[in-house]
């Protein structure tokens, strides 16, 4: 299969692994590489990459799963939308991963079972279709995701405005990647030697977005795609840089990522949203790390429309170590709930819910 088989070629993998063993062998300590993105985490496990790396190369999962980093306060408000305080008849449209994430008291899945109209969308355009079909309802799309997802949702808002749709809203819980990297690196006790940066987010952001982080914190940042060879290329580049005491931005996903990124998509994003301080699960509130509606698009903001500011923010479940896992401070099996009170069938924390969550990946592929 063209464009897929080339990136799963065992011979290429073998050569890259030999190179990684060579570079890592020149470094006389543990090398901690953070894969920021959940898609990388899953690919690493699925390809069995951890079992092939040198003993001193350690891959650590980071906060790049949008479901996992959604704060409990946002989760509670999204669940409240299923039966809003003002009694409006709502239809909540969301990507599948979100429905099982527990809020303080309930989940979207439980609300669905109790009769709330919650539907799984495969694209924000599904929400437009439902809004056109159900004029009697307020259709709210849950805006969760990084720079990969948010431009398409911004485009959906523009489409709704152009077509005069008055019953479509978005709950903005978007996250921006670069501020999270800075927040991570400013956290005490975090020992990260380099970042494996996500391919799809970087398609939008462009390689230049990582240059200030790499320079200021002296950490190699290497952009990689999601196929096994892409990931090995990224790891190899980071090990090479560390062996040579370098800390540059490198692009191991040149077939998709440019230096400047997708200017058009980022322009659409910028037209509808502006950076705001945002709460992250496990990382607290990070300045300018989320997106809120610009004033001229306030009519589409579900938080304002349904008065969700008044929904009380809940606390994290007792004993749940999702916060430490998301900051790379703890491997999932060290969480006291892992595999006991918290499993994919009855998750306590969001990292066990999302198919791209670190805990779910550890449980599924290595327990």
């Amino acid at each position: 299969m063209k464009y897929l088989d080339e990136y799963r070629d065992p011979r290429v993998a073998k050569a890259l692994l030999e190179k990684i063993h060579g570079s890592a062998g020149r470094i006389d300590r543990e090398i901690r590489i953070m894969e920021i993105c959940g898609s990388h985490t899953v690919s690493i496990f699925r390809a069995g990459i951890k079992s092939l790396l040198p003993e001193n190369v350690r891959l650590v999962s980071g906060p790049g799963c949008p479901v996992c980093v959604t704060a409990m306060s946002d989760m509670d408000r999204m669940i409240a939308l299923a039966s809003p305080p003002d009694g409006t008849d709502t239809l909540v449209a969301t990507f599948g991963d979100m429905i099982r994430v527990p809020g303080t008291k309930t989940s979207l899945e439980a609300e669905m079972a109790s009769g709330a109209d919650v539907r799984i969308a495969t694209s924000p355009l599904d929400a437009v279709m439902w809004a056109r079909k159900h004029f009697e309802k307020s259709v709210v799309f849950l805006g969760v995701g990084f720079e990969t997802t948010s431009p398409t949702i911004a485009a959906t808002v523009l489409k709704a405005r152009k077509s005069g749709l008055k019953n479509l809203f978005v709950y903005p819980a978007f996250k921006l990647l670069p501020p999270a990297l800075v927040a991570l690196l400013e956290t005490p006790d975090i020992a990260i030697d380099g970042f494996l940066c996500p391919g799809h987010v970087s398609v939008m952001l462009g390689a230049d977005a990582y240059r200030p982080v790499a320079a200021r914190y002296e950490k190699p940042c290497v952009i990689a795609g999601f196929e096994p060879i892409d990931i090995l290329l990224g790891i190899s580049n980071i090990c090479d840089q560390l062996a040579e005491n370098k800390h540059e931005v490198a692009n191991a996903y040149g077939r998709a990522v440019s230096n400047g990124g997708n200017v058009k998509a980022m322009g659409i994003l910028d037209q509808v949203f502006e950076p705001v301080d945002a709460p992250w699960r496990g990382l607290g509130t990070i300045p300018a790390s989320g997106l809120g509606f610009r004033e001229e698009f306030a009519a589409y903001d579900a938080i304002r429309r349904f008065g969700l500011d008044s929904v009380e923010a809940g606390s994290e479940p007792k004993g749940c170590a999702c916060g430490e896992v998301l900051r790379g401070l703890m491997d999932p099996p060290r969480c006291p709930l892992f595999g006991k009170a918290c499993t994919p069938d009855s998750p306590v924390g969001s990292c066990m819910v999302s198919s791209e969550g670190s805990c779910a990946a550890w449980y599924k592929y290595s327990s």
Partner: protein
Amino acid sequence: MSDNIILLSHGAGGKKSSELTEKVFLKHFTDPALLELNDMAVLELPPGRLSISTDTYVIDPIFFPGGDIGSLAVHGTVNDVAMSGARPIALSAGFVLEEGLSIADLERIAASMARAAGQAGVRIVTADTKVVPRGAADKLFINTTGIGVIPGNLEIGGGQASEGDRVLISGTIGDHGIAVASSREGIDLTTPVVSDSAPLNGMIGELVASLGSDIHVLRDPTRGGLATVLSEIASHSSVGIAIQESAIPVRDTVRGACELLGYDPLYLANEGKLVVVAAEKAHEEALRIMQNHPYGSDAVLIGTVTGERPGKVVLNTLMGGTRLVDKLSGEMLPRIC
């Protein structure tokens, strides 16, 4: 019939019910036992132990590329009965119809069931219909119960795998899962994937006739896919199973759709694939028999039963690494990014 949709009165047991039975079901279900219109069917069975299985079919959409809920209800139960090595003989069919269902659709499904049963060589010998108000069911649900007879002293089951056995699969995995998902989600695949829904009793009959007790386990990897079935076998038999990623056949289109949706082909449903665990000495012959059958032409060896890590399935990846393969947890949902 003047109307063309199912009405509540079609399920009331009166004239309308008789009309529906005669004009839809009896037109397609023509087994003599059923035509007697008793509340039961009386069958002569050959000697042997009875294999019985029941399943209820609920699928959206009811028509999908490569099949429909009717043929699926026949194939699914025929296959379940046959997984003990039994020869399936007869089926019952129970219908729950939603008020408002198009009678043309119902007739299309009844005709498809009759065709599928004929192809599998099983009789539909008794049936029942109920109608529920609009909204109380999704178009229609079908329950089928099947019976079959196990010849000789075969002991085929999930607990029979032993160290050294070989694991075979009859062809590509995930076709049904992607056919239904792409049809439901309106995803337009460049090369359309059709469901593999098919009766497996013919192939199983040939395997047990030739190899008998050298066939240890037969399973159809339906919901939960190949991963779940192998995990169950490893667990029931207290053995380890090692499989090779490079050997597992997956169509390019299915792989592409999985990349798009974030699905793992190992967990996708199949409705016409057979997993065989056979004694080492018999596996080449088993493979030959499967490959010579129309539903097993792409059959391959995918792994070995081991004495290591009892209860676990280990996948040797294309990259040369290893990882565990567990049962499916929850429902597969499209990912965010």
